[in-house]
Structure formats: structure tokens, C-alpha cells
């Protein structure tokens, strides 16, 4: 639905050059919620602004819903007719809402409809529908200054949906909101994604946002995408930085010498299986659970458990094979002979 190929953006100001994007390939599939995460200055905003050509990339291409936007004429805010038409099919929500204070909530939602050229009655009807969709039907006649942050963002979302877009871009839409409101706005985005089949590309600096609403994610650093993919795939990758961040297990114990420490990741249905007890029963071994955590990621239950089996890796080849057969992802963290971490027991020992 959204594809960028080798996208670069270099800002030039007073002889200084800043490379905000250094070759970004992004592929957002139709109907998914795709999150781009990264620290401040990583180039996230530049990337999303390049997607609807608010910023013209220095090189590379952007294709949205089959239209190559980079091929359309127009400079940034001086967009040509075709680019303007294409933008009407791409909704955008902003961190600071960007609502017109001189217009009521309803008139704000009507603004894009005026640009499209709908007549008054059509605009009224459409705005009412949209406000109902975001749960603000009773605020139609209020002014933005009378609304809370969360309500303002709902208006922003309703406005972004006015042109019946297939794609919604969101630049830090929840960063100005408190956690509770953030959750409700993310829930709304999720619902719109499901109900309308809306493809959502969102930018955030918060891992929690990715965790709670995204199907896929990309990690940006220094103008590059260092890792990207579906969350379920990322979680299955032992070396995934994103998966570590989404699901940190750092506090857990490292185990005892002469033992094998496994990290078991389970997703969806597999979590229901009592694999620890099965393992213990089948192979008659004592399993020491060093730590465990369960999270809901991309709407699926995901768990990770760090366990310790007696004996070396070789001794445990068969039990490990058993676990993998159950559809579990098993990573062997260390083998027998690991240096004992002093006299203290490892943190988080459960059994």
C-alpha cells in the first residue's frame, strides 16, 4: 500500500547539510498498522512527510496505493494538481492536532470536504457521520479550545478520514496526550483499521504504542531503517533489537553453572499449552524457571520464559527438540560452565 524505495532526504541550510533520510526502503501492506519507532532526530517525521510529499525527497521513490507520488509535479507546499488530488486520498493526523481555532468541530471536519468540493448538505451529512464514528457527535458545535487533548485528536482523526482515504498517516498523534487518552486514541485507530480496512502508518518514539496497536514495525536510527517486519516475525528472531525492546527480559537471572539456560518464546495458542510440566514429566527433569513475562503484542498473547535445565547443551538436545516440536521458539542462551555470579541467587528465581 505504501512503498518507499531508497528514499533519501538531505536538508541544506546555510551551507550545512543534514542527511535526514539515508536510503529508506519501507513496505507497508494493505490493511495493516505499521509503526516506525526511533529516537528523536532519527528521521521519522521526515519519512512520513515524504510519504505525502509535504517534503520532497532528495532521491528515491514513494508509491501510495499504486500511485507513484514522486513522479507527480509540485514542490512541497506548492503541489501540482495531480499531487493535490492524490493527497486527498491520504489522511494525516498531527501531534498538535492542527485544528482551526476559528472553526467549530464540525466546520473543521468539513474543511477537507470543502477542498474536495462537496456541497453544503453533503458536507453536513459526511461530517456528522465522521463525528459519530469517532464518538464526538455531541461536540459538533464546540470550538477546539473547548475540547480536551484526546477529543481534539478525535476531531483530527475525523477530519483525516473525510476524503475516504485508504491510508492514514500519523505523526506522533498521541505524544501530547496522557497515557489513558493515548490508549483510547490508539484503540480508535485500531478500530478504524479493522472497520474500514484503513492502512495506518504511524510514527512514534514510544515502544508501548508499537506494542499495543501495530502489526508491523520498523526501527529507525540515523536516517536508516535498521530493522523492520511483522511483530510476530520479529519476536521469533533471537537477534531482533525491536523484539528485545518490545519484550525486555534483562532482569532475569543468568542461571547456574553446569546448567543450560533456554529462552522460550510462545505466541498465540501455544501459550495455552502447559509445556513446562509436560517437559518435566516426559523427561523427568527439574526445570528451574528464572523468569517469565506475558504481553499482548499486535493483539496476540506473547510470552517469554527463561528456564534452566540441568546438564550441558548436549545433554538437553532431546528436550529442546521436544519444545521446538510444540511450535515454541527456543533460544539457548548459554551452556554449562558459565561463571557463577557470586553467592547471590539469580534474580527472579521462581522455582
Amino acid at each position, binding site marked *: 500500500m505504501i512503498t518507499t524505495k531508497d528514499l533519501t532526504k538531505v536538508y541544506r541550510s546555510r551551507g550545512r547539510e543534514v542527511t535526514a533520510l539515508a536510503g529508506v526502503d519501507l513496505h507497508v501492506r494493505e490493511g495493516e498498522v505499521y509503526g516506525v519507532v526511533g529516537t528523536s532526530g532519527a528521521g521519522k517525521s521526515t519519512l512520513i512527510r515524504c510519504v*505525502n510529499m*509535504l517534503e520532497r525527497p532528495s532521491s528515491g521513490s514513494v508509491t501510495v496505493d499504486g500511485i507513484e507520488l514522486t513522479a507527480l509535479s509540485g514542490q*512541497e*507546499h*506548492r*503541489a501540482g494538481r495531480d499531487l*493535490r*488530488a*492524490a*493527497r*486527498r486520498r*491520504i489522511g*494525516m493526523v*498531527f501531534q*498538535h492536532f*492542527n485544528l*482551526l*481555532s*476559528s*472553526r*467549530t468541530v464540525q466546520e473543521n471536519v468539513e*474543511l*477537507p470536504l*470543502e*477542498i*474536495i468540493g462537496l456541497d453544503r448538505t453533503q458536507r453536513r451529512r459526511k461530517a456528522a457521520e465522521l463525528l*459519530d*464514528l*469517532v*464518538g*464526538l457527535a*455531541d461536540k459538533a458545535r*464546540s*470550538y*477546539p*479550545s*473547548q*475540547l*480536551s*487533548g*484526546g*477529543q481534539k485528536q478525535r476531531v483530527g482523526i475525523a*477530519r483525516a478520514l*473525510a*476524503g475516504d482515504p485508504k491510508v492514514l*498517516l500519523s505523526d506522533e498523534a498521541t505524544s501530547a496526550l*496522557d497515557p*489513558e*487518552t493515548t*490508549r*483510547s486514541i*490508539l*484503540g*480508535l485507530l*485500531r*478500530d*478504524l483499521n479493522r*472497520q474500514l480496512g484503513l492502512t495506518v502508518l504511524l510514527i512514534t518514539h514510544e515502544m508501548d504504542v508499537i506494542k499495543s496497536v501495530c502489526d508491523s514495525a520498523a526501527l529507525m536510527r540515523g536516517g536508516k531503517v535498521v530493522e523492520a517486519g511483522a511483530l510476530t516475525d520479529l519476536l521469533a528472531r533471537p537477534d531482533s533489537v525491536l523484539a528485545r525492546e518490545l519484550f525486555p527480559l534483562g532482569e532475569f537471572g543468568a542461571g547456574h553453572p553446569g546448567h543450560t539456560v533456554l529462552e522460550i518464546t510462545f505466541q498465540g495458542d501455544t501459550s495455552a499449552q502447559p509445556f513446562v510440566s509436560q517437559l518435566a514429566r516426559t523427561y523427568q527433569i527439574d526445570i528451574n524457571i528464572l523468569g517469565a513475562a506475558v504481553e499482548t503484542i499486535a493483539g496476540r498473547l506473547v510470552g517469554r520464559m527463561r528456564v534452566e535445565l540441568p546438564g550441558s547443551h548436549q545433554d538437553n538436545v532431546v528436550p529442546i527438540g521436544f519444545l521446538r516440536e510444540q511450535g515454541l521458539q527456543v533460544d539457548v542462551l548459554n551452556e554449562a560452565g558459565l561463571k557463577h555470579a557470586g553467592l547471590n541467587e539469580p534474580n527472579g528465581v521462581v522455582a
Partner: protein
Amino acid sequence: MTWDDMQQLMQPATLETLQMVGVATVVTVLIGLPLGLLLVLTDKGGALQNVVVNRVLGVIVNVGRSLPFIILMVALQTFTRGVVGTTLGWQAATVPLAIGAIPFFARLVETSVREVDGGLLEAVHAMGGSTWTTVRKVLLPESLPALVSSVTTTVIALIGFSAMAGTVGGGGLGTLAVNYGYQRFETGFMWVIIAELVVIVMIIQAIGDFFVRRLNNRGHSGGTVRLRRRRSAVSTPEAVSTPAEELTPAS
């Protein structure tokens, strides 16, 4: 000089002053508003960015603003005759008045329009709006209170200029004050005219303030916190507004 004498002289003069200020204001707004907008739009980062045009307009405005009005009036005599056919009377005074006020007003417009949050322009561009759309739907309506305030300031400045126009036969209250107060030593009458000018200025300021307040009040009334259940068409529990959100008082 009796009160009746004064009134007989003052009534037509007041009308003349109001006419010349009124016409000059209309012309000033018609030319100064687009000029002020152009100053913003052609500036760096503006939608119509054009360094040359921006510089030229900037210089014209600065020169216009630094010329003393009295000089402008004399210098423009030929031009004035070309436009209104005479160099005397209130009609003739409107020309230098407008030309003197246009750069002044254009700068005020520029300042007002610059105050508009750039994010709003970005939002309109993202919706597929053109530059003209941003002017019509964002820049003008969002800066309207400041623009009205600028018009008030300009009208008041024009009243001051119009009194000055009297010294070179421009008609209106200024001419009256000069002719009677200064040349015939009717000091009492001069004070009456000055008092009237003060009253006119106060009335215009009050009218301007009234409209600015009306415009600024958009959205600042009824800031009560209401606890009301909102039903959402979107059905999951997260999507239904949270109590925390409901309790946030309207700002």
C-alpha cells in the same frame, strides 16, 4: 463664537473627515491586505517564495512608511490631480491618506498573518489544498481578530493624518482647527475640535475592540466541565472515551 456657530462649522467638517477617512480606509484595506499577504507568502519558506519580489515589496513598504505624511501630500499633488481631478478638498486628501496608510497597514497585516501556526497550513496541504485555499481557509480566518485590530489602528492613524491634511487644504476637522484655532486665535473652538477628534477616536477604538472580543470569544465560552456519557459508534471498550478524558476541563 457661539456654540451654534461652532456646530454649523463642525457638522460639515466632521462629515468630510469621516468621508476621507472612510474612503482611505477602504482603499488601504483593499491594497494593503494583499500586499501584507504577499510579504508573508513570498518570504523564505512561504508558499510563493520569491526573494526578488519579497525584497522589492519590503523596500517599497519601508520607504512608504518612512516618508513624512506632509511630504507625501505635497509630493503626490500631480498624482492626486490625475486621480480625483483636484488637489483641494476631502476627495483630494484621500489619495495621500491611502497611500500613506497602505504600507503601514501592510506591515500590520504581515505581522498578524505570521502569527498563524504553520501546522495549520501543513494540515491543509496534506488535505490537498492549494496555496489559495490556505489563504482563504486558514490565514485570513485565523488571523481575523488581529486583522480587525490592525484596521482599528489604521483608522485611528488615518484620523490623525486627516487632521494634518487640513493644513494644506484637505478639508475636514483639521482645516477647521487650523483656520479658526491657529489663524484666527479661536483657541476655545480649537479645543472643541480636538475634543471631538478624541471622542471619534475613542468610539472607533471601542467598536474595533468589540469586534475583536467577539471574534476571540469563539470557543472560549461555556468552559464548564460536564460529565456526560458519550456513546461511540466504534465498539471496543478502549474506544469509548475514558473518564480521565471526560474530566479534563475545557481550556
